[in-house]
């Protein structure tokens, strides 16, 4: 054993000391071995590359995933911001319209947000975000850019309730813009508006515009109430049955204007 080991060591020293030529016989086994090992090494190398690539890709994917999540969050934030900006723009546009309306009317008014609806759904009322601290009082007129909304029926310190003109307890003095036929516009139980007490002889037609007369002392003259949808002359009564399509859709209301200046009733002109 010791001897064999000693011999092998000496052989190795010899080979080292004298060098090995490429074509030397002693070199052949190593070359064969190289050839034999090569495919394995190739496979191993390929596997290593694959593993490396997999790991690299995995880490890259983790990074991509994280980046993807981050970008998605950014996108969601930007979308929310965009929606908020669009909402603000719409609100700004709406408030600007209300401001224009207030200036056009030449009356003092307070803008208020609609924050709730009637608790039972049977009456048609809305809750506003402003109250008597902001100067609102019971009986004040509430309008929007589209027309008449209603009047305040209850005012607390920080909130107020509006009775919509579509409620069956509501009534406002109005007239046909074209024929000047007068009547009382009121809501009905099921939904919608009717114009009551219009004389049968009056010239009133579907599509006519109905505006406030200003005679009730609440709403200024000439505010849009709605358009005539249907007229019925049936029955023996003295008056026409006039259905009016409201100009304002209360379900779409977000901001309204409360007129804080009471509209004085126009003086009654004596005939003759």
């Amino acid at each position, binding site marked *: 054993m010791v001897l064999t080991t000693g011999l092998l060591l000496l052989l190795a020293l010899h080979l080292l000391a004298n060098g090995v030529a490429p074509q030397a016989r002693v070199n052949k086994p190593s070359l064969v071995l190289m050839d034999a090992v090569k495919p394995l090494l190739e496979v191993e190398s390929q596997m290593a590359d694959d593993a490396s690539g997999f790991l690299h890709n995995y880490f890259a994917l983790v990074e991509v995933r994280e980046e993807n999540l981050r970008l998605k969050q950014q996108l969601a934030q930007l979308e929310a911001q965009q929606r908020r900006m669009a909402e603000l723009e719409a609100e700004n546009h709406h408030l600007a319209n209300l401001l224009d309306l207030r200036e056009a009317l030449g009356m003092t008014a307070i803008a208020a947000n609609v924050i709730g609806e*009637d608790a*039972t759904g049977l009456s048609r*009322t809305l809750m506003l975000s402003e109250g008597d601290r902001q100067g609102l009082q019971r009986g004040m007129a509430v309008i929007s850019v589209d027309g008449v909304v209603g009047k305040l*029926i*209850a005012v607390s310190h920080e909130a107020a309730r509006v009775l919509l003109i579509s409620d069956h*307890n509501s009534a406002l003095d109005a007239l046909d813009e074209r024929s000047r036929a007068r009547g009382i516009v009121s809501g009905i139980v*099921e939904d919608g508006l009717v114009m009551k007490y219009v004389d049968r002889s009056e010239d009133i037609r579907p599509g006519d515009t109905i505006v406030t007369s200003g005679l009730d002392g609440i709403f200024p003259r000439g505010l849009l109430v709605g358009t005539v949808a249907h007229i019925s002359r049936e029955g023996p009564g003295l008056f026409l049955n006039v259905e009016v399509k409201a100009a304002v859709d209360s379900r779409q209301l977000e901001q309204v204007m409360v007129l804080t200046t009471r509209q004085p009733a126009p003086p009654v002109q004596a005939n003759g």
Partner: protein
Amino acid sequence: MLLLFSLATFVALVLQTMLPRLLPLGILVPDFVLILAVDLGMRHPRALTALMAFAMGYAVDALSGVNLGLNALLLTIVFVFAYWFSRMLISTSAAIGVMAVFFGVIVSDLGNSLISSGLAGGHRLNALMPAVLIQAAVTALLTPAVFYLTGWAARTVGLRIDGASR
């Protein structure tokens, strides 16, 4: 008990005033406060809870309609009706509650419409009836859930429920 139902009424009123803004439900918004009044009438019938039903109606009046006291009256009637109904059928089960709520909504809605329009809108009630019936059905369907929630809340805070579901 009163505190619990006050809180429940507050939540119910917030829901009833907010839901129509979020969903186009109109009259079809469930009348949660009426369910609470029926719950009081069936399972907690006392003088103080009758007063509570009145106060709940008064709270509804603050957020609805033009006639202060109308819903207070109607909810007190519903409270009494629920008490009478459950005693007549000798049961305070959720099924009886569903029926009591169904009829209670009809009574309340028709009473509301008739009284607030000074009986002038009586001839229009046939037009209103389909919506009233749907609201009654929707509210009645939610009754077991509300009963369960109030029962659970009462048990959680250690209150005893008289005549629990049999």
